[in-house]
């Protein structure tokens, strides 16, 4: 046992003992301020109060037949996290590793990688999962943090509704309705890592039914710490701006229009890039990846009744990553989706939907990275149907459904699931699920040629995509239990067993001679194939406790085992994701405390086990935030992140090595938020 582990145990013990001691005299806080106010309202006024959708949402989440977790806007504000990627640490069971200042490896339920291919991420229903390398560019996943209403995270497969690539999890980042962001907001801050950031937002009512907001934000972030003697060159900066308009066309239908534009620069030290086929042939250099993009989305929603609604959504998304001289990626995505829910009879609630997506891609090639077709249209079409069957009213439900889709890589795909939900009463929820989900090939797996290194001869080692590469697939078994003994205490437990087949492997093939470009060289090829399979299993546990109106605690724990093997006949040297990319254990403890005189004191501790594959040691992370609200419209805060050490590594080198690694550093920043 490392000293880190011991420390952690001590920290754990201390917390629980102290919490116990301090909460003995707590018992019941009699005064509920809200109720005191409600008491003095008239019947008519009471009739006019809107029931919070939070209650309904809580109810919906409590009775969900999947491992769902919600990060609230208050969680985000009080965590002090400045990026969505980092905020995901709060979710028990998410693997979040900061690779360098502007890139992350994030997934749930294992098989992590910089391009973790099995986690679908969406912002307001718009996918930000990139089909090029099957993964998410986390430096581009951003909104004004103050605009986030909540982040819903589903661990486990969601393919039946969300479609391909929702294999290990789905993340939905949901921004506020513009009617809830009226008036102005300015926030600005600076620190040693956060060299400077600022957000401006202004919202206005156009008339009774329409409201709008516009925002702009900018940040500049420092390089991380030196690792293995590399001089860090991974600072980044970006500007982002956008709008959202909401229109309540009638009592039952609403329209939303929103759009964003962003432009930034993510710097990195590119390593071992092949610049010539003559030995040694590689070069390392600093480069600035220019990111540039935008989107426009329109959504129409109609609510017919408690059990019937429909939604039609269209979006356009442009993403450009200019990583010259290695490559340049340009993607234009057009997507349309329709979804409809209705009661077929008293016991059958049907949800069905249709969706179509077109992606036009184009690439600029270099000696190290080439695409067989430099530009083409890709498409996918999908439809799903799901029946929620009530077996015993308010008690037992069965949810059966499947997605059926077609895409230009693998053709037809199906992703069925069966879920059962037992809610014996308001306090307990027990659920179980069996589902199949697929991860469709990326454009790279289909048609890339990545030259990894040049050896004397000369000969070049190349990784090649293949049209024959098939989807990876998962068969998942899950069970979960939620318990809410009072409205101050909440437990959530999920267990899973995943069987993966057709996982990505890199198979060697017969070397061949290539004459162009000169000099004449031998190519040692590795083709991407589906010659690997594996199992993962584990559990995720989460407790939330609110001993007082002014104090909220949460704790999470997860355990994960990954076992992958190459199929008989495979001669692969590696798989894309591998055993040992994920920590076996993780735990966290968070506290949000309101102090007198409008002070807030928030702390968080995270324990992340070592990563076997990279020999990355386990670490404890401590975050502290002190906030002060001298008036209703002003918040001052000071945050320290990674207080525990000056720097530490969180991830390792994947093959082939493309960029230099750096280490996460302690960060201190101050921030001011002013509403007007």
């Amino acid at each position, binding site marked *: 046992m490392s000293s880190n582990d011991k420390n952690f145990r001590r920290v754990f013990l201390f917390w629980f003992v102290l919490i116990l001691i301090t909460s003995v005299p707590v018992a019941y806080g009699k005064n509920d301020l809200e109720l005191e106010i*409600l008491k003095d309202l008239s019947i008519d006024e009471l009739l006019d109060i809107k029931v919070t959708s939070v209650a309904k949402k809580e109810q919906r989440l409590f009775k969900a037949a999947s491992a769902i977790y919600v990060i609230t806007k208050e969680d985000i504000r009080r965590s002090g996290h400045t990026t969505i990627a980092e905020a995901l640490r709060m979710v028990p069971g998410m693997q979040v590793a900061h690779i360098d200042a502007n890139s992350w490896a994030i997934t749930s339920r294992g098989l992590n990688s910089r391009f973790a291919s099995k986690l679908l991420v969406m912002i307001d229903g718009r996918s930000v999962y990139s089909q090029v390398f099957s993964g998410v560019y986390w430096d581009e996943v951003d909104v004004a943090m103050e605009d986030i209403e909540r982040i819903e995270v589903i661990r486990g497969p969601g393919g039946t509704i969300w479609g391909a690539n929702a294999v290990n999890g789905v993340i939905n980042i949901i921004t506020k309705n513009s009617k809830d962001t009226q008036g102005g907001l300015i926030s600005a801050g600076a620190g040693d890592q956060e060299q400077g950031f600022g957000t401006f937002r202004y919202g206005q009512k156009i008339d009774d039914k329409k409201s709008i907001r516009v925002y702009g934000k900018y940040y500049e972030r420092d390089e991380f710490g030196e690792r293995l003697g590399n001089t860090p060159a991974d600072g980044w900066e970006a500007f982002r701006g956008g709008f959202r308009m909401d229109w309540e066309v009638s009592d039952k239908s609403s329209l939303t229009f929103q759009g964003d534009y962003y432009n930034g620069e993510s710097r990195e030290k590119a390593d071992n890039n092949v610049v010539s086929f003559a030995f040694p042939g590689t070069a390392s250099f600093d480069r600035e990846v220019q990111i540039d993009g935008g989107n426009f989305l329109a959504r129409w929603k109609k609510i017919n009744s408690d059990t019937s609604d429909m939604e039609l959504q269209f979006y356009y998304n442009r993403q450009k990553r200019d990583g010259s001289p290695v490559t340049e990626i340009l993607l234009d995505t057009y997507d349309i989706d329709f979804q409809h829910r209705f009661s077929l009879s008293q016991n059958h609630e049907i949800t069905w939907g249709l969706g179509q997506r077109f992606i036009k891609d184009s690439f600029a090639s270099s000696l190290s990275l080439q695409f067989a077709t430099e530009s083409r249209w890709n498409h996918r079409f999908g439809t799903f149907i799901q029946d929620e069957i009530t077996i015993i009213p*308010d008690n037992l439900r069965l949810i059966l459904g499947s997605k059926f889709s077609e895409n230009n890589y693998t053709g037809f795909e199906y992703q069925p699931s069966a879920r059962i939900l037992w809610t014996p009463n308001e306090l307990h929820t027990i659920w179980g699920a069996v589902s199949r989900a697929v991860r469709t090939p990326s454009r790279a797996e289909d048609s890339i040629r990545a030259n990894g290194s040049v050896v004397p001869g000369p000969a070049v080692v190349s990784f090649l995509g293949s049209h024959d590469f098939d989807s990876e697939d998962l068969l998942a078994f899950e069970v979960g239990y939620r318990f809410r003994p009072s409205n101050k205490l909440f437990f959530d437990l999920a267990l899973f067993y995943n069987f993966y087949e057709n996982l990505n492997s890199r198979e060697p093939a017969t070397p061949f001679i290539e004459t162009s470009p000169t000099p004449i060289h031998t190519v040692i090829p590795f083709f991407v194939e589906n010659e690997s399979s594996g199992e993962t299993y584990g559990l995720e546990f989460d407790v939330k406790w609110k001993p007082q109106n002014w104090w909220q605690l949460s704790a999470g724990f997860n355990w994960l085992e990954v076992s992958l093997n190459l199929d008989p006949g495979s001669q692969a040297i590696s798989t894309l994701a591998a055993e040992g990319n994920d920590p076996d254990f993780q735990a966290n403890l968070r*506290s949000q405390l309101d102090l007198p005189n409008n002070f807030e004191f928030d702390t968080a501790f995270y324990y992340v086990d070592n990563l076997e594959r990279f020999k990355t040691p386990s670490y404890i992370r401590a975050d502290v935030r002190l906030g002060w609200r001298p008036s209703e419209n002003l918040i001052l805060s000071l945050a320290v992140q990674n207080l525990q050490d000056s720097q530490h590594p969180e991830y390792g080198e994947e093959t082939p090595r493309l960029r230099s690694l750096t280490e996460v550093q302690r960060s201190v920043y101050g921030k001011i938020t002013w509403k007007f």
Partner: protein
Amino acid sequence: MKKIFIFLIILTSISFKVFPKESFGDIREDKIQAAFIYKFIQFIEWPSNIESSSNKFIIGTFGRTNMQELLQTFAGEKINERILEIRPIDNLNDIKQCHILYISPLETNNLDKILESLKDSSVLTISRMKDFANKGGMINFFINEERVRFEINPDSAQKAGLKISSKLLKVSKVIRSPKT
């Protein structure tokens, strides 16, 4: 490092008695219902023999529900010279002691039994369950267009000797007992 940790932990764990910040705008359904229950008192007239029997006004809750805890906020208030008491009721024999009985939605299966035990008493019954008012309950909450609404069965109330103010009936959905 360890010292900093311990310091932080202690600081985090110290409990200061402070009032929560005022936040209006997200109000839970059950809180609104609790306020309604409290408000209903002034719109109901209990038979005079019951009115004078004790110096307490009792709201009972039956079955597992957090309404008990919410209503505690009002405990000790004066209602027509009487002190409001919130009392969890576990035994059917005790339910006649209440002026108002809130029945947990979890008690759907026992509803007939409960209402049977209340026969010939003057207890105002309130719940939030399907068909509560149709089955002989008096006031039932429901949600319509994101707002708390209630239906009242005045026939059931009348049978129990309770008079419900027309003002309250006006803003409710009136349910009539099926003719038998």
